[in-house]
Each structure stands twice: as C-alpha cells, then as structure tokens.
C-alpha cells in the first residue's frame, strides 16, 4: 500500500512539469501586451516601452523566460504581480480560503445529498421517486452555472430577500483571519460570534448551491447506476443469504463496492469545481481565486496567471492523487 502511494506521488512530477509549460505558454498565446496595458493608451513612449519590457524580462527569448520561471518555482518563488507588485503566492493564499470554503460547501452539498439520492433511486428503481430524481438530475446537469446563479439571486436574494446578493460576509463584522474560512473564524469575531457566523453562512449558501448543482446531479446519477450494477452482483445475494438486514447489505456490502467509480468521479469533479469557481465567483462577487484569475487575465498579469494557474493545477493534481489513494482503500484489488 505504502509503495503504491509513493509511486503515485512520483508520477505527479512529469504532470506538474507539463502543467508549468502549459500555464506559461497559454497566456502568451493570448493577444494583448502586458506592457502596453500597464502604460495605458497614452503613454506609449518607445523608449519607456523597451525599458519596461526589459525590466519585466519579457524581451528575452521564450525558452529563457520559461526556464527562469521554472527555476524560480523550484525556489518557491512564483514571481510578483505586475499590477499589485505583491508576491503571487501571498495573493494566492489571501484568496484561496474563500474558494476553498465555497468548494467544500459545494462538494459537501453534492455528496451528502447526491449519494443518498442515488442509493434510494437505485433501490426503488423505476419508481416515481427514481424518475423524478433522475429527471431533476438531468436538468441540474445541463444547467449553465452563470444562468443558474443569476436565477438563484433573482429568486432568493431579490424577490424573497432571504440571502444577500454578493460578498462573503456583512461589512458590519470585523473578522480576523485565522484559518481564512469565515465559517470558522467568524466565531471569534468581536461583534458576537453567532451573528457573524450566520451572516457568513447566508452569504455562502447561494454560491455553494450554484456551484454544487452540477456535481450533485453527477454524483446522484453515478451513485444510482453504480449501485444498480453492484446490487445485481453475486456477493449481494450471498450477503442476503447470510441473513444480514437489508440496510446493512446496501450500505456495507453494496455501497462500498459502488464507491469505486463514485470516488473516481469525485476526483474529476474537483477540477470542474475550480472551473465552476471562476463563474460562480464572478456572479456572486466572491473574493476567491476564480475572480482573481479573471482580473489578472484581463490585465495580462503574466506572473499571476502562470503562477496562479500553476497553483490551481497543482491542487487539482494533488486532489486527484488523494482520490487515487482513496481508490486503493475502496478497492483492495488495486493494491498490487
């Protein structure tokens, strides 16, 4: 088991190198010149332009720029933002907790509802519940996040007034950063923990719903089909023949086997959560990395984009590695 885990980790290195190359190249393929954008439309003095370009290192050949970028990464230096002059890593970790909190909430929503829904649909196959659920799942899956997010805002924030429209927490509350996750940090807020927590939660619900809908639909459908397959297996008949209660047969014997493909899907969904974060954060003005990346792309902030993309990609890859390890746990046959 340990050997298999180490092997998985070693396999990450070439993937990460590939990602670094892509992150570096992609932004340079986008039309637009960061120096021009920085100088503004009026200040295009040729001499100033060349000087600035040299300062940023953009006058050197591509491969040289890439190797400098790569070498710096190995030293833990992801560069500095052209716009804010702050270190990319600092900016990243300032915003990452917001995205993490949103992502965890969305995934929790998807898993805690999706798996039970899928199980019930599989057990009560072809029932009214099954049809309704799978129909709703299909709708949820096909829903564009930006449209769904706006609809949620219109109904719950504008018409019903139940939740705030945007942001992470009410401006009234001063929350010191400890973990960066407001649901936790808000308890130590000066103006009363519970009220601040409630405010943070009410801000979080809609974006998490918007972001978690597609994963929820995917998880529910996947659980259903995986459970249906497993419930027809011989070992389920054995488990029933042993006299086990049906609930135990379903949860212990069937679900554990059905989890194998579900875990795989969850790993892939984490990647789509990041994509979802970009859209969701724009709609709900959520101060996370999704919004940060979009602004940086608009500003052609090369270091932020390549550094940020590198960090995000590493996270997705790391999550997938964790998923692979979970997979080993769920499926003993893979351990060799």
């Amino acid at each position, binding site marked *: 088991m340990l050997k298999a885990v180490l092997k998985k980790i070693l396999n990450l290195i070439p993937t990460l190198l590939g990602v670094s190359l892509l992150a570096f190249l992609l932004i340079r393929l986008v039309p637009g010149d960061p120096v021009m954008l920085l100088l503004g439309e009026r200040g295009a003095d040729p001499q100033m332009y060349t000087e600035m370009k040299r300062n940023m290192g953009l006058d050197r050949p591509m491969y040289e720029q890439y190797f400098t970028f790569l070498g710096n990464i190995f030293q833990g230096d992801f560069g500095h933002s052209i716009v804010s002059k702050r270190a990319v890593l600092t900016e990243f970790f300032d915003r990452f907790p917001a995205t993490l909190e949103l992502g965890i909430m969305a995934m929790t929503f998807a898993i805690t509802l999706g798996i039970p829904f899928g199980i019930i649909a599989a057990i009560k196959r072809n029932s009214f519940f099954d049809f309704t659920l799978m129909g709703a799942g299909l709708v949820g899956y096909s829903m564009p996040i930006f449209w769904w997010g706006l609809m949620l805002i219109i109904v719950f924030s504008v018409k019903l007034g139940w939740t705030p429209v945007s942001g992470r927490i009410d401006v009234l509350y001063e929350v010191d950063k400890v973990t960066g996750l407001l649901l936790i940090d808000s308890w130590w807020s000066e103006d009363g923990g519970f009220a601040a927590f409630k405010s943070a939660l009410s801000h979080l619900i809609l974006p998490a719903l918007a972001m978690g809908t597609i994963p929820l639909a995917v998880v529910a459908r996947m659980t259903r089909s995986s459970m249906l397959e497993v419930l027809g*297996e*011989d*070992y389920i*008949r*054995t*488990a*029933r*023949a*042993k*006299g*086990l*209660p*049906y609930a135990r047969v379903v949860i212990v*014997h069937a679900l*554990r*086997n059905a989890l194998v493909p579900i875990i795989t899907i969850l790993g892939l969904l984490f990647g789509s959560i990041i994509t979802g974060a970009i859209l969701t954060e724009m709609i709900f003005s959520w101060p996370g990395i999704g919004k940060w990346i979009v602004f940086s792309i608009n500003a052609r902030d090369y270091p932020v984009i390549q550094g940020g993309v590198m960090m995000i990609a590493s996270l997705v890859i790391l999550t997938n590695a964790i998923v692979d390890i979970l997979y080993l746990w*769920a*499926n*003993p*046959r893979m351990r060799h």
Partner: protein
Amino acid sequence: MLLDVQNLTITFNTKTGPLTAVRNLSFQMEMGETLGVVGESGCGKSITNLAIMGLLPPQAVTSATHLSLEGKNLLSLNEREWQCLRGKDVAMIFQDPMSALNPCYSVGDQLIETLLVHAEMSRSDAALESLNLMEQVGIPAPKERLKAYPHELSGGMAQRVMIAMAISSNPKLLIADEPTTALDVTIQDQILRLLKDIQEKRQMSLMLVTHDLGVVAQNTDRIQVMYAGEVVEAGLTQDVIHHSTHPYTFGLLAGHPDARKSGERNHKSRLPSIQGMVPNLRQRPKGCQFHPRCSFAQDTCRLEAPQLTVTPGISRATRCYYPLNRGEGRTDQC
C-alpha cells in the same frame, strides 16, 4: 421432516406477461438426508432454492399449498423473520465462489460478520470461531488466510471459505447450488468430499443442485430430476441411476462421458446428446413438457400432461406415459 414443499408454483410477472418458472413442485427432505437435484440450466432448480431462502426478486409470485422448514410455515414469514432464518436454519453456497465473496472485505471480516448476525458473541470470540471454521473446512494457514481478500484466493479456497460461512451458524439445511461447476475437476472432488464430511459430522441435510449426474450419483441418498419447472423423475439415487425410465433422465445419463468406455469407443462416435432446447417458459408445449425433444413421444404425450406416478416395487416415480424399460442397461455408469 425437515423441509416440506407441496405444490410450489413460482411465477414471474414480466412486461410480456406472466412466466411460470416452477410448476406444482412437491418434495420433502428428511433430517440428515442428501438430496440431489438435477436438470439443465433454466429448469427451475435455482429458483426453487431462492424461494426456500426467501430471496426471490419482488416480481416473483410464490404460491404453494404447503411450504415449511422444520414445521415453520415459510409462506407467512415477513422480511425480518426471513432474516432470522437465512444463514441460521438454512444456508446456501453458490456456483462461482469468486464472485460470491465481496471483493472489498477480507475473508475474516466476512466470516466474522456472518457469525455476529446470528449469535450473541463478542468480536474477538467471533474471530476465534472463524479461525476454527477455517480449519474445519481444510484451509491451510488459516490465520493468514483470514486477512486475505477474495481475489487472493484460488477458486477452491474461496469455495471452502463459502462453506465455512454457510456452516458457521450450524444450519439444518445446506443448499449447495452447483458448488463445483466453476471449479477444476480435481478440486471438485475435494469440495464434494468436504461437503459430505461436514454433513455427516454436523448431521445437516444437504441439497446438492447440479446438472452433473456424476456428481449426484456418488454423493446423494435421493435424486430428483427436474425439467421445465417440474419433477420428471425422483427416487433413491441407485434406483434413478440404474433404472432410469424417463427419457430425459436417460438422455442425461447417456450424455455423461465415461472414462472407462472412451478408450474402447471409436474416435468417430459422438457422445449422445438430447436434441433441442429447454422450452420457452412463455410458450410451454401442450401435454408433456419434454415431448418436443423426446424421440419416443406419442400422440398422448402431445395432448395431455402426464402425472408423476410411482413405479410399483421400487422407490421411484416417473412423469411419463411410456417409461423406458431399460432397467438392465446402465449399471456400468456408476
């Protein structure tokens, strides 16, 4: 009497209409007896077993004038009562041991779980007992094997584990549904001997379901041959094997390769086989169910279904109007 089945009929409600898999099946089993149930695939053997275990799918409708195990009426049990019965009073082992064990749990986990469902004991006691069971079914290095996962076992070992699981609560009836079909021939014999051995030690009744007459001939007290959901011939093993009168039983026996004979046999001669297929249960033939495949069929056979009738002077019953008179024929078989 341990098991009493009277007029058991099992019908599946399918989209294209009802499908009767088992028709008016009646048989009994005594304590400590071994019954062999023989027949081709699709003749209702496994369905009958699942009915005795209460494991039929919901679209199956079971009816019987009487169905009891140790005097307990099985027809009126609810799901909770079935759970108490399954694995405790009646246990089952299946055809393919590799797929019958859950791949996600170790052998030990699955054994301990079985012990804990039916008996009040601590987990450590159950662990000791499972070690004991592993020894009883002849698994070498049982302590290490308890930690193994099913995919790490051979087919024979996996079937031994299944047997250990099945006998863990000391059932009165053990149903072995094609227990050796998926195994190598050399292993088959070991498993059958193990089953016989355990049955004698524990005074269990054993129902040995198979399509292989060779298996039942050596290991059973009585045989019942099934065809299209009905018993076509039943009786003491020796009587059925040596004095088979139903053309179907006879066909099964003739289709059994005989090692002693094959040396003498001309290489060009083929092993006899029963022509045709088991009838489609949606369009059952009129009259005798076997008549479309029977080379001795007469007009009566095509019109009216024969009843199971006991042959005088011998403990065997046949469902045939024109039983074959070849009592002398098959003594060399077994």
